[in-house]
Structures are given as C-alpha cells and as structure tokens.
C-alpha cells in the first residue's frame, strides 16, 4: 500500500543553513494492506520525519514515497484531496491538536466542510456518532465539550474518530499514546488493533517504546540516526535481534519479568554523528576497522529479516548465505 524507496531528508541547519543534517538516510520499506508496522527509534532517529513525509507535510530531499503505486509528490488538487481521504495522521500531543477556544468536536465540522459539503446535517450527525462509537466513546459524553473538559485518552480517540470519518486506509500514528496514562493507553492500542482487524486499516506506528510496538505490530523497522539498521517480522526482530543496536535497545527496556543485566551501556559516543561508515560504530561494542569506512548494506539473514551490520558476514547466517 505504502512504499518508501530510498527516501532521504536533509535539513539545513546552523545560522545561515550552512550545515547539512541528514535526518533520514536512504530509507526503504513498505507497509502492506492491513498491516501494522512499528517504526522504532530513539530521539533524533528520524522516525517522525518519515511520518511527516508520508503525510506530505514536508517533502523528501530525494527518493520516492508511493501510495498504491502512485508517487505522492506528484499529487495535486483533487488527487491530493483524495489522498488525504485515505491517509491521515494522529500525533503525540492530543492537547495541542485542538484549538482551546473552540469546542473539541469542531474537528468534525472542519472535516465536513472540507470533504463532505453535500452530506446533510442529520446524516452527518449519524456518521459522527458511528465513528465515536467505533473508537469507544459515548457521543453524549464528548460532543459539545471543550478540550480541557476531556481527558488525553478521549481527545486522542476523538482524533482517531475524525480520521475514521474519512474512510481512511492508512494511518500514521506518531507516538499517539506516549502522553497517556498506563490505564488508558492500552485501550487506545487495542482500538488500533481492532481497526486493523475490522477495517483492514494499515498503520505506521511510530514509537520509542519497544513493548508497545511489539504488542501491536506485524513488522518492525529499527532506525538509528536516520538509517534502517534492522527490519523484519516482529517476532524475529524481537526474538532474535542481530544488530548490536537492536540488542542494546532490547536489553535496556525496563521489564517487570526480569531485572536489568549489569553491563554498561555507555553514553559516550552518542553525540558524534559519523558522516561515513556504520552509523552505530562509535557506540558499537564490537566494531571492526571496516565499520569506520564503509556503510553496511541491509542483508537478508532469514526470510524478510534484514540487518545492516558488517558482523553479519562473519556469523553463521552470513557464511551460509555466501555459500548458498
């Protein structure tokens, strides 16, 4: 459904835009119909930039993003409007998605003006109620209220309901539950899972929380400094991670079933942004000389599971591949 082909985004930074910052570096992956893909990375990994490029809020510097085979950068006028009928985003901070001086349900009115001017008032009311019920909200409790009268979970669900009114097929969910409390965030996750199951919705679930990503997704893409270091089926990436970065992330997640292993995750080297070589080599516990000079390509270690690491060549899998 959505395909990214060597998508790159370079930002000009510094006082006069004199320096270039590669936020996203030749990222390719695809999201199939009815699939949930987790885009996992720490701050500065470029995960949000990717989401924003898919939503066409910012253009890629190079590379293409395809939706049902069409390059989205070529869309104009009606075609672009149709694109937004099928593709919508929900973001991290539900409070800043609303204008506090208007009632929260204004978001629905704007959708009607923009996309459905011919739908009658009564019919539209029914559609809104249907969408609200689909996200588990009682219309009477939320309609006619101001944003400050609703909880973060309710506001986030209203935004998902707003997206559903458009009959979307693809949702970019950027850290949608990181600001919600534990007791409500799981309900929003379950809601996304239901939408996928019942409506065949595809979701790009952008998160820094590995446990949340695992709970919901079919596949995972692990980003580090704008590069995909590992991607594949969720059970494989989490069950048998190859890349040292993925392993470090997984071992750092606080869990309730086991204590952290002693073992030092150094903070040094985090600041350095290598311009060539493997993006992770400064922090990598087992770097090779070649890691400094040459950037590793993604290599398939098992069906659908790709890793970008020079060490892969030395492991069993790498040997098998070379022989086979």
């Amino acid at each position, binding site marked *: 459904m959505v395909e990214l082909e060597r998508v790159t985004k370079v930002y000009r930074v510094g006082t006069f835009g004199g320096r270039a910052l590669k936020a996203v570096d030749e990222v390719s992956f695809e999201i199939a119909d009815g699939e949930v893909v987790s885009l996992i990375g*720490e*701050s500065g990994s470029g995960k949000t930039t990717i989401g924003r490029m898919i939503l066409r809020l910012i253009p890629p510097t190079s590379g293409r993003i395809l939706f049902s085979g069409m390059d989205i950068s070529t869309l104009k006028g009606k075609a672009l409007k149709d694109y937004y009928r099928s593709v919508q985003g929900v973001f991290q901070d539900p409070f800043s998605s609303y204008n506090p001086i208007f009632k929260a349900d204004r978001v629905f009115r704007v959708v009607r003006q923009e996309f459905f001017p011919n739908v009658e008032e009564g019919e539209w009311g029914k559609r809104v109620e249907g969408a609200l019920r689909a996200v588990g909200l009682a219309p009477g409790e939320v309609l006619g209220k101001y944003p400050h009268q609703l*909880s973060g979970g309710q506001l986030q669900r209203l935004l998902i309901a707003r997206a559903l009114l458009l009959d979307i097929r693809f949702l970019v969910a950027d850290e949608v539950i990181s600001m919600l*409390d*534990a*007791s*409500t*965030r*799981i*309900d929003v*996750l*379950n809601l996304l*899972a239901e939408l996928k199951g019942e409506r065949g919705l595809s979701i790009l679930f952008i998160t*820094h929380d*590995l*446990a*949340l990503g*695992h*709970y*919901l997704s079919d596949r995972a893409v692990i980003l580090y400094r704008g590069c995909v270091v590992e991607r594949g089926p*969720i059970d494989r990436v*989490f069950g048998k991670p190859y890349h040292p970065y993925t392993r*470090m*992330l*997984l071992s*750092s*997640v*606080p*869990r*309730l*079933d086991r*204590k*952290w292993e002693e073992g030092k*995750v*150094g*903070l*040094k080297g*985090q*600041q350095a942004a290598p311009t060539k070589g493997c993006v992770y080599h400064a922090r990598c516990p087992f770097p090779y000389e070649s890691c400094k000079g040459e950037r590793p390509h993604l290599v398939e270690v098992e069906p659908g599971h790709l890793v970008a690491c020079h060490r892969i060549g030395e492991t069993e899998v790498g040997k098998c591949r070379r022989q086979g």
Partner: protein
Amino acid sequence: MALKVEGLRVYYQTLRGDVRALDGASFSVGDGEIMGLAGESGCGKSTLGRSLILLKPPMKYVGGEVLLDGDPLPIWDRERMAPYRYKKVSIIPQQAMNALNPTRKIGRLIRELLEARGVSSRDLLPELKRRLDLVELSHEVLKMYPIELSGGMKQRVVMVISTLLDPSLLIADEVTSALDVSTQKRVAEMLVGFRDHKFVRSMIVITHDISILYQIADSILVMYAGKLAEKGPTEAIVRRPRHPYTQLLISSLPEIGVRHTERRLSGIPGSPPPLLEPPQGCRFRERCPVAFDRCREEPPFEELAPGHLVACWRAHG
C-alpha cells in the same frame, strides 16, 4: 528512619475551592531506601514530592507533619525551610534540563549556588569533578553554557548539582521519563549509584513507570487520587499486589513478548474522581471491579504483612 510523614495534607487553592491533591499521607522511608512513588497523572505524587521541599502558592499546607532524621521539617514555612532545602532535602525537578540558568556557565552557576549557601566552591571542586566522572560528563562542561549541552547532559548536570551537598533525602521527579531507553537505563543506574556512594541517604523516585521502579527501587508506594493506595517491598508490589488499583495498573502494562493477538490486555475503565469535591469513602470505588457496600467508608492504610500496607477493605477482609 530517614523520613517519616504523618497525615500530610496539601491542597491547591483555586477560585472554586480547594483541590485535595494530597489528602492524608502517612509513610516512612528508611535509611538507604530508594522508594518509588508511582501513580497516574493527577494522583498527587508530584505534589507530595514538591511539598517536602518548596511549598508555594497555590499549594497550601493543611496539616500533618514531616520528620527528617528525627527533626521536624517546617514545610509550611518557606523561610524556616531554607536552611534544610538543598542541604538536607534536595530535588531533581521534572524537566531538569530546563532548570539551568541559560546566562551562566555551568561552573559559575554551581559556584554561585554554593556560595549562596555559605559553602566554599573551591573545597568542593575535586569532589565535583569526581562526580562528573561518575555521570560520564567531561570536566569541560563547567566551562560551557547550558545551551551547549544536550538534554541528557543537562539532566546529568542537574543530578550532580542537586546532590553535591550530600542531602539526606533526594526527590527525583520523573527524571527518566523524557529519555531514550538506553539513556534511561544509565540514568536510573546512576541514581542507584548516588545512593550506593552515600551521596544521598535515601531517595524518593517519582515516576508513572512501574517497570523502571522494578529495576531500581527497594519499595514502591502507589497513589490514587490524592490518597495512598499501597506501599510495600518492590517484589511484593509487582508480584503480589493487594490493592485492586495496583493489580489493574500492573496488568495493563504491555511487556515485550506480549502481542494483542495472543493476550489482549485491558485498561481501567473510567477516570479518577474530581479532587475538588472527592467522593466519600474509597476514591477508587467507582472504577473498582470488587467494590462493595463497605467501600463507602474510607479504608484505613494499614499493614497486611511486615512493610506491606494497603488501603482496601477487601484486602483487610
């Protein structure tokens, strides 16, 4: 006992009346104990933490007492609290990265802070450098402005500054929340290191993330709607929680290895009661799956097993 809190009540004054954010808290923290303070937003955990160091309007002291190393802390009196603040009780505030004065180099900022408290900064310099090493910061940061440091570095600077005078009690308010997982782990381990090196005698770590507490805390105190719900040794709270709220909260956390298709987790229906006019009796009653008539009466926060206290009629039944 490093810290003993008895019946502490702190409300927020608003035009519509008092918001009872902390409504009767009694607990203690032992020597060398790291106590985790957990709960959802608005449960009063930050109010509790802040009231122990700087109670300022609209916060209002209503009642109760606080003993630190046996001495009463005059938390209701800002002036009289001054000698205790920073020296005896210190805090790493929420969003510590924004706590540094942007117009001062870190070194000067520290010097001024110490001199304001009559401490010679020159004597402390070797110790300061040792502690910067401990949090993996180069001594160069002393010559830098806050803007030159990343968020995580500023956070560690604040951690070092807040504990420089070896306070008896350190309150760490959501210090790991805005960090990436790998940094989060290191910062959490540093907090334990501060205790192990005896920079602080005991610590209250405030967070909404129970899985972090499971890694570093000796005990966990769970709050709900301005009241204490449960306190106990970490292992007991995580493995054998007795308060229905703690039970539901823990079971709603997704763990790595859990997928929605295999095991569907559920949240806690409903939302916390308004604290402007909180209901009588147990404040969790309306959301509680096992509530019964008696819950109209307020349950006492009492010991079930040594060190394990619960405020629930069912648990005491």
